[in-house]
């Protein structure tokens, strides 16, 4: 039995039928394979997925620092998304709502009689106490069922208080994972926030947005540091250390960089349609990938000065990390890894592992779509199931006032030919191969199985898996929270990542798991220890 069969072996009937298409063995890099993805999880499987609300409020909207995001529902959902995702934010003026949790804390009577009154009052209180520029409302599961019209409340509040108020119907049961929530958040931002400042489009320059960067552990700051050092101007970040204010100006950028393709590609596409802003799939995770990314951005702008500055910065940054890079490479070379997270990271992190000579032998996504595995070329072939169809597909049209001058077609095609990922994402598969296994929507059982089979030197996943993996004797680092370290992006981030990997693999305690009395005779014989005088 090959690995895939071993994993599937325990499953019977329906589960087998379902899961077999989510588990793919790759033969060699680049060979196209189809994988089932973005479909309903099998109930009872102890999966790692969250819900629509988690994608909308937890991931995309939560990081906005100048916005009061009110969770409309019982207390739990708001509580769990309070300070837990490490989307760092810094408001020089102290107006930082990321440290706060706002909720309507719905009670039984609100469920019975409807929660709109309470929501209205909550917004009033938020405005009176906090004077935010924008209030956003995120619904949790029961809201849809009891029929609260949160859009009406939002509209009404806008009028009453003269602020922006956006409602998101991101009830947890929508879609099949966080992914639906990303989409809903993207739609709301596109519809109500992006470009709403309506400022004129300046002359073509070096203005960029970073999309799909949530500043976990300060990743966004590290990327900004490098980009600014080269000479780029950052208009808005979606949404790490982001602000409602900056997003209203996002339409003025010349280029959108897309870091997390999965969570934000909707906005990238819509902004292309509406404003003709090109987007480029980038990756700041990994040294070589950061270099590639920086060069592609410079290529995109085609500005010689920037190209030169890019090379200078790359050289400087590489010099800074040279010693550490060498040390960690030496320590990590040849180690194997499993990478199981999110919707883009499992791909990104294979690159930084490669930087240090490590091989990813197993990987998987929690909530990715087929294009995240197979590349955007499969998008036309993806059949939406009922769960995904229910998520609104926002249609945008070219905005006459704010339509951009874009890259000329010829250069665009030229860049594409050079494999620059303009309006394109190649997916994870093309960077894997050699008998590696990819598992979509991996569950606890499968995680145990791949560990047993592949025995990787380290397994990257999230907190729900982490302690189980460690109990089995494998180092496990979290790629959601970076184990409270970071940044992991950019040159310096790669070193931080390597250091954490090194510390985890080499933690002395691993050598002590077996008590000596399990391997040495205790019940007989003399005391053989040299210490016994």
């Amino acid at each position: 039995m090959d690995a895939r069969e071993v994993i599937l072996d325990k499953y019977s009937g329906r589960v087998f039928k379902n899961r077999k298409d989510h588990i793919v063995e790759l033969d060699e890099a680049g060979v196209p394979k189809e994988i089932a993805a973005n479909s309903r999880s099998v109930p009872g499987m102890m999966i790692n997925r969250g819900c629509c609300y988690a994608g909308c409020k937890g991931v995309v909207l939560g990081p906005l620092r100048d916005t009061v995001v009110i969770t409309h529902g019982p207390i739990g959902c708001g509580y769990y998304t309070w300070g837990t995702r490490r989307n760092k934010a810094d408001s020089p003026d102290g107006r930082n709502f990321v440290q706060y949790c706002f909720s309507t804390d719905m009670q039984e009577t609100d469920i019975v009689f409807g929660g709109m009154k309470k929501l209205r009052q909550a917004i009033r209180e938020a405005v009176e106490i906090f004077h935010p520029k924008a209030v956003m409302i995120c619904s949790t599961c029961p809201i849809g069922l009891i029929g609260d019209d949160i859009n009406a409340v939002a509209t009404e509040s806008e009028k009453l208080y003269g602020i922006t108020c956006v409602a998101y119907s991101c009830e947890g049961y929508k879609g099949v994972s966080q992914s639906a929530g990303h989409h809903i958040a993207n739609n709301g931002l596109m519809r109500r926030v992006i470009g709403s400042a309506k400022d004129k489009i300046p002359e073509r320059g070096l203005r960029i947005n970073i999309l799909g960067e949530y500043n976990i552990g300060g990743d966004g700051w590290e990327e900004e540091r490098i980009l600014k050092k080269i000479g780029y101007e950052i208009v808005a970040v979606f949404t790490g250390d982001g602000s409602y204010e900056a997003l209203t100006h996002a339409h003025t950028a010349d280029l959108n960089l897309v870091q997390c393709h999965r969570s934000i590609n909707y906005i990238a596409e819509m902004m292309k349609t509406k404003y003709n802003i090109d987007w480029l799939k980038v990756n700041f995770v990994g040294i070589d990938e950061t270099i590639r990314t920086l060069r592609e951005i410079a290529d995109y702008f085609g500005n010689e000065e920037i190209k030169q500055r890019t090379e200078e910065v790359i050289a400087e940054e590489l010099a800074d990390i040279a010693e550490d890079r060498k040390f960690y490479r030496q320590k990590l070379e040849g180690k194997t890894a499993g990478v199981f997270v999110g919707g883009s990271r499992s791909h990104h992190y294979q690159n930084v592992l490669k930087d240090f000579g490590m091989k990813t032998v197993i990987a998987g996504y929690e909530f990715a779509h087929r294009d995240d595995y197979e590349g955007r070329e499969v998008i036309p072939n993806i059949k939406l199931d009922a769960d995904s169809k229910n998520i609104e597909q926002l249609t945008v049209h070219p905005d006459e006032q704010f339509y951009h001058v874009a890259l000329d077609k010829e250069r665009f095609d030229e860049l594409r030919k050079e494999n620059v990922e303009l309006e394109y994402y190649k997916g994870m598969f093309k960077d894997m191969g050699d008998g590696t296994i990819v598992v979509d929507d991996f569950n606890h059982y499968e995680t145990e199985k791949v560990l047993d089979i592949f025995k990787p030197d380290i397994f990257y996943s999230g907190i729900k898996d982490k302690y189980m993996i460690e109990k089995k004797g494998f180092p496990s680092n979290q790629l959601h929270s970076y184990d409270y370290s970071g940044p992991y992006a950019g040159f310096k981030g790669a070193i931080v990542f390597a250091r954490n990997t090194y510390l985890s693999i080499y933690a002395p305690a691993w050598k002590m798991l077996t008590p000596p009395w399990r391997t040495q005779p205790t019940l007989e014989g003399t005391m053989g220890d040299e210490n016994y005088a």
Partner: protein
Amino acid sequence: MLDMTPKELVHRKALRVNPAKTCQPVGAMYAALGVHRCMPHSHGSQGCCSYHRTFLARHFKEPAIATTSSFSEGACVFGGGSNLKKAVKNIFDIYDPDIIAVHTTCLSETIGDDLKTLIQQMEIPEGKIVVHTNTPSYVGSHINGFANMMTGFIKYLSDKNTPATGKVGIFPGFVNPGDMHELKRIAKMIGVKYTMFPDTDGTMNSALTGHYEMYPKGGTTVDEIRELGGAQHVLALGEITSVTPAMELKRKCDVDFSSLPLPIGVEATDKYVMALSHLSKREVPTELEEERGQLLDIMIDSHAYYGDKRVAIAGDPDTVLGFAAFCLELGMKPKYMITGTPDEKFTKKAKELLLKYGVTDCIAKANTDLFELHQLIKNEPVDLLIGGTHCKYIARAEDVPFVRAGFPILDRYVHPYMPLVGYRGAMRLAELISNALLDRQDRDAEDKDFELVM
């Protein structure tokens, strides 16, 4: 830090800011994790289960197993029965627990899934069990969820016809595995035959050996829960948390119970010890009396540092009451006692306690949040803050010495192993409190006032 929090108190009717509670299901999950070979199951959207597992893993630094019904929009329309049925089959197939403990969520409650009927109608493998409880997130808090899950187990399992076991049922309340371990140690010292229910000592503090066991040795067994029906008596620890399940056992199996405070501090531990001694008709052993005397020794030795210090305590109702009681025993003055759990019994118990010590200016409030606590502290400061990790933002903003105690503690290690109950637990609490106060004195001392001996 928390710069947007104004000093001026504004009465809020609708907006909850920085809560001091979370929702029922996570409590239910934790309770179920204290049952041997049990798989907690969240009947709702995937997010609930994911959040709860994450949350428990972060506090305990342990795997928190649980499964979900993975509601989709379809399930909302047609009810979650089909999802539950599939889940139960898959769980038994793949994860092979002895028992599945289903709790509901706001979603399945709003839909109105009739869990009892669903479970009755489903195929359950021979020898396996499925139980459930209702834990609507929009009622009460995680504390109620914990109690409700216990009640659920009792309803399904506890058997009135069990012959008298002579055992004392001990309901530990929503506490750490280390606390449950200590409660058992005390019971063993006195020589009481007991059933601890639930019991996460052994499940949520298990060893690292290189071999993962999904169901470690610990936890109350199904048989033990069954036999609670024949228990001599139940000690329901935590006057808010444990009464509901104790009443259910009384109702169903006519087992008498005593409602006792969580054994935090001297008097509350005395009550626990006395009750065990009463029930077992065994004398309190010297060793335990020695621990008590050691605790008092510590309290007197260090008393000068506590005297009249004002303390703010936030957290779950029974632990807040326990910490407050011990603070009072140390000579401190609770200034704020707050819990997010909406239960006025908390306020009543707090007032009784404060009255006993003649403290008249303490604000004790249930159903409130950390935002209000912060505002209160801004208006009248305190010398010490005791609570879970979320309180550290307030401690930083207001530069107040801070003791992490209660639930959740997300930013430190080892604490779940270390009891705060019993005399030994109070010693630890005294150490935590005195260290916090003394560290602050050291920090704030000018060089000339930096003391070698304290």
